[in-house]
């Protein structure tokens, strides 16, 4: 079925040739040069990774390849796909190129698919938009047959039935497979994958990366992989282009780049990537620390249910979890999305109600939660939210936000409050003058520090940090994590550190708990859980985490396959 589709660009020249690309956006505050001068090429059958932090212009570059830039952008230079310059071709010609010569895989599979059409229809839509080699329109029946074929290629079991399914009937990883199938439907020579695994859990990510590698090996499809995750790059890419501030900083083959980075920026970037097993907080420990102190959080068979819709049973987000957090201890809670880790954190802060078992926070039984009786305890609990951009009221200054807990609980004079805010900002290494700024004037990392300052202003005994660094760039994340570690040692608060990133959790936590579908499957010392996992799920989780080192990653990949098949 696929053999009769024409396959342009099978010659020896590059599939994609970007030459001195410049992209400028018109914004309210003048022009923004998103891409300054980028030249790169992609050869047939090659996986080129474009890496960079947010704002580096990598996504803009990717969108230019498909001519998907918004109206406010102007681009200069050349983007050649099989001899067509995407920047200058007519709209009709561009439509021909899209899908046939180049296709795109988006970041979020759940929004890239239209929920009201079957996946088969959506894959066929692209096929039917293009005539076949002889110039005839493709019939609906044939398009569907090709859609089945495409689904088979990406490893969807039983594609003849599944082709009639709607997107909600697939899991997140399968949806991404469907998106890839749609991209593959016309056998384009080039696939642009914009953060294809960022929205996926790490175990699913490993499978999608496997699939992309297979496609390249079997069908010779070139892939432009846009990502910020150095582990993904090490796993999949042949060649890497590092971008920073709209410019190409370094270009090298994957192995060379990871082994001998030339530019300072690349070195810094690679050094900042958390690496599982290095820099573990529990290094050298053999038994659980801080057990002499008071137990601040004690969960016994904790169950948290979300009420179901009429007729459907309640959803158990947390199912019989038992753990304790003692004074001064950092407890790391790891799990994939939907494992209930955030629910536990929110329950401890009184944002979610518990429905069964027992959860004692500073001696208060959360099962009988009443805001009025819990309020006095709130000053002992700090909370750091995931998204630093959203956790500050945009209308208040940083000083007002940080001082808020102080004002609510101890009603200080403005001068006292100001002094205390200044002290706290300085302890999170922000200048005290930042108190007068508004949240949008700070960078993500600075905001997260301010967020930490707010959580610590009342000297709490317990801090709950819910994915505090997952919205940050990797180099910023490294700095914030380091600061976090220092401050924890200095203030000595107990901490529940919630994250999906094993390496990050290992860097900070003395004791680690692994959650899977609401159950605590394993807990133990950080280095033991990471180094010698006992439970099958933990083994799979750790094996699927890509490390930023191509050779080591190749070995780990083999190990992961072994775990999968065992």
């Amino acid at each position, binding site marked *: 079925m696929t053999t009769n589709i024409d396959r342009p660009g099978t010659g020896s020249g590059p599939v994609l040739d970007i030459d001195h690309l410049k992209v*400028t*956006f*018109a*914004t*309210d*505050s*003048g*022009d*923004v*040069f*998103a891409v*300054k001068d980028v030249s790169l090429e992609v050869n047939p059958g090659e996986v080129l990774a474009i890496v960079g932090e947010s*704002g580096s212009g990598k996504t803009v570059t990717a969108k230019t390849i498909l001519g998907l830039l918004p109206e*406010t*952008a*102007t681009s200069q230079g050349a983007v050649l796909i099989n001899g067509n310059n995407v920047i200058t071709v007519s709209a009709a010609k561009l439509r021909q190129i899209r899908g046939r010569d180049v296709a795109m895989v988006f970041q979020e599979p759940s929004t890239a698919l239209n929920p009201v059409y079957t996946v088969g229809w959506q894959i066929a839509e692209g096929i039917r938009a293009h005539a076949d080699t002889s110039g005839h329109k493709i019939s609906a029946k044939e398009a569907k047959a090709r859609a089945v074929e495409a689904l088979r290629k990406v490893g969807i079991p039983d594609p003849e039935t599944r082709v009639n399914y709607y997107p909600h009937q697939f899991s997140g990883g399968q949806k991404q497979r469907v998106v890839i199938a749609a991209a593959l439907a016309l056998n384009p020579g080039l696939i642009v994958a914009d953060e294809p695994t960022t929205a996926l859990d790490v175990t699913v990510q490993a499978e999608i990366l496997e699939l992309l590698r297979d496609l390249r090996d079997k069908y010779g499809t070139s892939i432009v992989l846009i990502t910020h995750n150095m582990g993904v790059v090490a796993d999949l890419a042949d060649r890497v282009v590092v971008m920073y*501030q*709209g410019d190409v900083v370094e270009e090298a083959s994957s192995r060379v780049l990871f082994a001998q980075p030339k530019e300072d920026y690349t070195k*810094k970037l690679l050094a900042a990537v958390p690496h599982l097993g290095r820099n573990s907080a529990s290094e050298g420990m053999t038994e659980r620390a801080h057990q002499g102190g008071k137990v601040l959080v004690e969960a016994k068979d904790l169950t948290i249910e979300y009420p179901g819709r009429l007729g459907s049973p309640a959803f158990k987000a947390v199912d019989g979890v038992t753990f304790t957090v003692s004074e001064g201890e950092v407890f790391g809670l790891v799990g994939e999305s939907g494992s209930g880790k955030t629910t536990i954190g929110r329950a401890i*802060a*009184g*944002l979610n109600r518990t429905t069964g078992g027992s959860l004692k926070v500073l001696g208060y039984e959360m099962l009988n939660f009443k805001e009025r009786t819990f*309020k006095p305890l*709130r*000053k002992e*609990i700090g*909370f750091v*939210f*995931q*998204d630093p951009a*959203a*956790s*500050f*009221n*945009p*209308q*208040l200054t940083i000083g007002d*936000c940080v001082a*808020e*807990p102080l004002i*609510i*609980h101890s009603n200080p004079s403005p001068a006292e409050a100001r002094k205390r805010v200044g002290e706290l900002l300085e302890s999170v*290494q922000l200048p005290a003058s930042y108190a007068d*700024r*508004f949240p*949008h*004037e700070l*960078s993500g*990392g*600075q905001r997260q520090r301010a967020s930490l300052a*707010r959580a610590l202003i009342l000297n709490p005994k317990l801090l709950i940090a819910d994915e505090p660094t997952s919205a940050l760039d990797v*180099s*910023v994340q490294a*700095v914030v994590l*380091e600061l976090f570690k220092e401050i924890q040692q200095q203030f000595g608060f107990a901490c529940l550190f919630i994250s999906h990133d094993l390496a990050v959790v290992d860097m900070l936590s003395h004791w680690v708990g692994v959650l899977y579908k609401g159950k605590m499957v394993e807990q133990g010392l950080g280095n033991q859980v990471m180094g010698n996992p006992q439970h099958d799920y933990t083994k799979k989780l750790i094996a699927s985490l890509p490390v930023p080192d191509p050779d080591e990653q190749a070995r780990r990949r083999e190990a992961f396959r072994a775990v999968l098949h065992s």
Partner: protein
Amino acid sequence: MNATTVSGRKQPLLYRLPVISHFRTSVGLQRGMLVTGLVLAVLFLLTAALAPIIAPYGFAQLSDASGTFPAQQPPSPAHIWGTTVSGYDVFSRVIWGAQTAFVVIIVAVVMSIFLGVALGLLSGYFGGWLDRTLVVIADAIYAFPSLLLAIVMSIVINHGQSSFWGGILACSISISVVFVPQYFRVIRAETIRLKAEPYVESAKVVGASSVRIMGRHIFKNATRTLPLIFTLNASEAILTLAGLGFLGFGIEPSSAAEWGYDLNKAIADASSGIWWTGVYPGTAIVLTVLGLTLVGESMNDLNDPRLRGRKKAGSKVPAGGPGSTAGAQAALEAEARMP
């Protein structure tokens, strides 16, 4: 770091005021629409404010030193837009009508904003039975044709008699009954959205009281669309007022000049070739509503980054604005320097 300090500062208050900030961000057709709307709206405001100076006669004046005004007189130097069947001077009544319309808009919209915002905040934040009851009431009010509701309210409040303020209040209250649900809905929806924002949760976690959360964190963020609804509602208020007047439920001609009432009295004139009694008040309604709507709609478009037009990139050399990469770079480097 300098780049962020300088560029990140708030602009002077003047430039952050609703209409002025919109004017500054607009280009091309959108700016044209906004300017046209502003000119018409300012014209309306000036007319309302200066009515005693502009109008040659009072709104209920039927005679002057030279005797009683003739009825249905075509435009002449003494009565530049003619006179009505009752002998009123059309020009004077149109000018005074602007004042009536202005007062009604202010009273009606202010009443509905206060009530609507307060109810919306409470209902959205606390939810539960209070929310459900208020939403049902708002829906019930929506189900009535707004003019019918205004008529009913006008009868209930007014009982037919009307002094100047009595008439104005009756009209304003009947209009606000229609508008309160609108403000209520907008603020309630915003409140429900903001309630789930991390910064509101963060305030909850530190133990802030409900009053504090609503007043400090939700109110200011939920009311940012109000200038927009205000302008759009103002034009609707004028239409409702004119409708009430046209149907005979408005303000008596001896209490205040009112465009709708004048239009009503002009119906019979139209067929007998007396055009001036209907055209001028009608045009006044159209232009005022058009002006206010244009201002409102342009603000709506300019508020939304996706609808807002911009100058083409590269048309002028940027001077390192807030979004420029130079600023971002400086911030990033500052970030990296901090150990």
